[in-house]
């Protein structure tokens, strides 16, 4: 379904090691860096070529809009109003007049150029340090014209990485559950979209209930729960081909699936006789292993990024709490000890934190704690929200939130939201329908 991007990436000019601008990402959006995203310049012939091909009047402006939007929504950057720009895009890309950009308080400047060459889209862009009057980075890509949105995301990732010192998360997708219809009879479909909400597609028809899709961190495979033939089972879906298969041969409900970090195993719960235990299945040799064995409910398992540990949710203490164990099921330790119930632990891709949902005194919180349970921080409080999923760089959490209905049971909605690890920059991600159970892909290109 997705075309493999063909990117030829050459570094035109080597990166200077000691740049002056730096974005401190530990501070959240208190002080977003003012920067100018000059529209990518385009010659008239290329403009017409893309207009015919992509039905976009000016593809240079469209790509820079994507960059601008990504950087703004990260909360770390403050893209300045284009109306204040003094220098024309084509000239700025050759040699910016730094005093002009300084005047409008831009600390960084992005310029670039788009060409239509041999039916291909060629984009070059440059990142400038305005105060130091220096070029920080220059890159060029060539790809098929249909990939123009991804070019915008890749530029955003490169700029983010250069200015923050960490990988970006813009050239990624979100898989989620689209929801429609009354609360008592919701129609649910798997859906996928770009991280910024563009290119939304439905992957199932809504004939059966589907829940909790999760990306394979190593490929574009997805695992999810489907009630196909009224038998709730964990399935594997190849997004490229659309083929689906049931995972394992369990005599009952399997649920709460996730991939191991290398993508070779699926870890999930299997419910039988009122107990739910955690199992893994190796996708190559189909060997099933039982990881927990306890009369309680053990569910929502998630591997550490090195694959050596598993965090999971259990009510073995009497109530839902978060535990960590070795990947063979030994050394089980409870790590959540605060007031309330804890669920949906998810290990950060950086390895240092576990995100969770907490229910306390009728409110739901999304929070993070260190992997030994210390340093609990609650990021957001609401009537109902759960199921955090990490951006691939471990900076942002996406989750879903449901509204309280009125006295007649009306007014229900479910939406996707994201929040920065710092607790700042909470924002709704627009979807064509109601939405829940988001899962963030890894970077599509590197």
């Amino acid at each position, binding site marked *: 379904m997705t075309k493999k991007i063909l990117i030829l990436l050459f570094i035109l000019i080597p990166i200077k090691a000691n740049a002056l601008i730096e974005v401190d990402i530990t501070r959240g959006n208190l002080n977003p860096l003012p920067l100018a995203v000059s529209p990518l310049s385009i010659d008239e012939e290329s403009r017409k070529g893309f207009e015919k091909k992509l039905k976009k009047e000016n593809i240079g402006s469209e790509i820079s809009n994507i960059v601008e939007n990504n950087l703004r929504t990260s909360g770390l950057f403050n893209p300045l109003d284009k109306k204040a720009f003094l220098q024309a895009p084509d000239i700025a890309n050759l040699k910016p007049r730094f005093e002009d950009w300084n005047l409008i308080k831009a600390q960084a400047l992005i310029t670039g150029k788009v060409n239509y060459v041999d039916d291909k889209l060629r984009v070059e862009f440059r990142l400038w340090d305005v105060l130091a009057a220096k070029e920080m980075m220059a890159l060029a890509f060539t790809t098929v014209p249909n990939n123009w949105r991804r070019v915008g995301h890749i530029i955003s990732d490169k700029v983010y990485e250069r200015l923050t010192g960490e990988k970006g998360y813009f050239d990624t997708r979100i898989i989620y559950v689209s929801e429609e219809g*009354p*609360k*008592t*009879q*919701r129609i649910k479909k798997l859906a996928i979209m770009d991280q910024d909400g563009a290119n939304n597609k439905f992957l199932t028809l809504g004939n059966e*209930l589907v*829940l*909790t899709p999760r990306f394979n961190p190593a490929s574009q495979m997805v695992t999810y*729960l489907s009630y196909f033939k*009224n038998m*709730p089972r964990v399935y594997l879906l190849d997004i490229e081909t659309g083929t689906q298969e049931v995972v394992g041969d369990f005599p*009952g*409900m399997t*649920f*709460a699936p996730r991939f191991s970090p290398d993508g070779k195993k699926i870890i999930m*719960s299997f*419910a039988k*006789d*009122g*107990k*739910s235990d955690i199992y893994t299945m190796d996708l190559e040799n189909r060997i099933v292993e039982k990881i927990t064995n306890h009369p309680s*409910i053990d*569910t*929502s398992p998630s591997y550490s990024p090195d694959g050596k540990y598993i965090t999971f*949710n259990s*009510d073995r203490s009497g*109530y*839902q709490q978060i535990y960590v164990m070795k990947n063979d099921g030994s050394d089980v330790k409870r790590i959540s000890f605060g007031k309330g*119930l804890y*669920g*949906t632990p998810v290990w950060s891709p950086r390895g240092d934190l576990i995100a969770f*949902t907490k*229910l306390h005194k*009728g409110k739901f919180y999304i929070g993070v704690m260190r992997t030994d349970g210390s340093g609990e921080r609650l990021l957001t409080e609401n*009537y*109902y929200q*759960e*199921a955090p999923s990490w951006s691939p760089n471990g900076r942002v959490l996406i989750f879903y939130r*449901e509204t*309280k*209905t009125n*006295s007649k*049971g*009306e007014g*229900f909605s479910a939406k996707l939201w994201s929040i920065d690890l710092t607790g700042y920059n909470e924002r709704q991600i627009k979807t064509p329908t109601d939405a*829940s*159970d988001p899962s963030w892909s890894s970077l599509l290109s590197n």
Partner: protein
Amino acid sequence: MRLSKIFKNTLLVLAACLVLSACATKKEVATDIQGQMQGDVYTGTDTVEYLADGVPDRVFFATNESILTTASRETLRAQAAWLRKNPNINVVLEGHADERGTREYNLALGERRANAAKDYLMTYGISSDRITVLSYGKERPVDSGSNPLAWSKNRRSVTVKAN
């Protein structure tokens, strides 16, 4: 096996009695919305359907619990008697949770509730071959309200004819 099941259910019954008596004293004051709840277990009949005359199709649970109340056991005994009289009928026990929990835990909780009902039917002589358990977690509420009464109606195990 059968003995241990019976023993387990006796324990459940005892536990349920303890819970109920504790609640009865506390909740007398706050007898809920038109007396439709005891503790936080639904005791009304609004949503109840009948498998046959005098055989209600569902039982209700307290928050986060899968213990059968006295009323639930009475309902299940009626279901067991009806199933014994109709040996060709098989059933699906559909377990549900309210919306105030995480999705995955609620799936497990729904399964646990339906199993509590299944175990009880089995102690009254219904073969496990005739019973399928299916959890919907919080996916299929009967009441879309966001209040304690609505949630109490949604915490349920419903016995549905499979054939």
